[in-house]
């Protein structure tokens, strides 16, 4: 697995396309895709949205992420960084933010490379450039 993270609208998808040669149509939108197609996708973006949808269905997003790391270990996962703010007042938002953190740690732990994209600039923070 390769994890690409960073804030919203920093150029993560553009980087994934340029660096790993993935076309737009092969990138699955975590905000709308089915939970099953993620397991065979080459690339999923907006994974933080998928986490929110899983939680709405009372699925455990960390277990889902662990399974994804096992069953689709060759994929590219794009996940926004969402934790760098004030703790939300709303309990649901708070739990989502925490679960996103845990899922991110799980995915990063299993990934051979972790990239962080800021202002369109990608830095490798785990692994080595090939």
């Amino acid at each position, binding site marked *: 697995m390769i994890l690409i993270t960073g804030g919203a609208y920093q150029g993560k998808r553009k980087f994934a396309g340029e660096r790993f040669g993935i076309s737009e149509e092969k990138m699955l939108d975590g905000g709308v895709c089915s939970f099953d197609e993620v397991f065979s996708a080459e690339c999923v973006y907006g994974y933080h949205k998928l986490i929110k949808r899983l939680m709405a269905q009372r699925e455990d997003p960390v277990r889902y992420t662990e399974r994804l790391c096992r069953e689709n270990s060759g994929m590219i996962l794009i996940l926004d*960084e969402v934790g760098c*703010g*004030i703790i939300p007042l709303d309990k649901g938002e708070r739990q989502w*933010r*925490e679960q996103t*953190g845990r899922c*991110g740690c799980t995915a990063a*732990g299993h990934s051979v490379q972790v990239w962080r994209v800021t202002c369109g600039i990608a830095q490798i*923070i785990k692994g080595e450039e090939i």
Partner: protein
Amino acid sequence: MITLVTGGSKCGRSSYAEGLLQGAEGAKIYIATMMPYGEEAQITISRHREMRRGKGFETVERYTDIGGAVIPLGSSVLIEDIGNLCANEMFCEEPADDPCGRIVSGIKALAEKAEDIVMVTSQTGSDGIDYDGGTAEYIKVLGQVNAALAQTADNVIECVYGIPVALKGKIG
């Protein structure tokens, strides 16, 4: 050696910070700053206790005036976390006049006694939301505290989903 570990919510800061003191010789002190009020605080506290179990930390609870914490000479100290400490200094019954100054001078006082200090703090200023009064002030003060502590620290590490990134010094 003074290390500041920062990052967002549930980014693996605690595990990384604890790991830094794994091989430490001498006493290991964990200064807990979170007030144990409310169900979620209790859950967080028990989860962190579980994480520290068997790692040889002695826990000291200290909610304000961090410099007054009693620590043995030459000990290794993990402070968790600065964000809570800052909120306590600002919003407790008797708020500090200068919360930033109090925290920074307190840490410096501890650094004179401790062999190693590892501080966990949080990044709170990056959600682009305009908050009112107290919260806006908190983000500002914590930002100032973090900047001042980073200046004092030998190493400043940001955790990104569990991956340490060196902002100053080196990854331990």
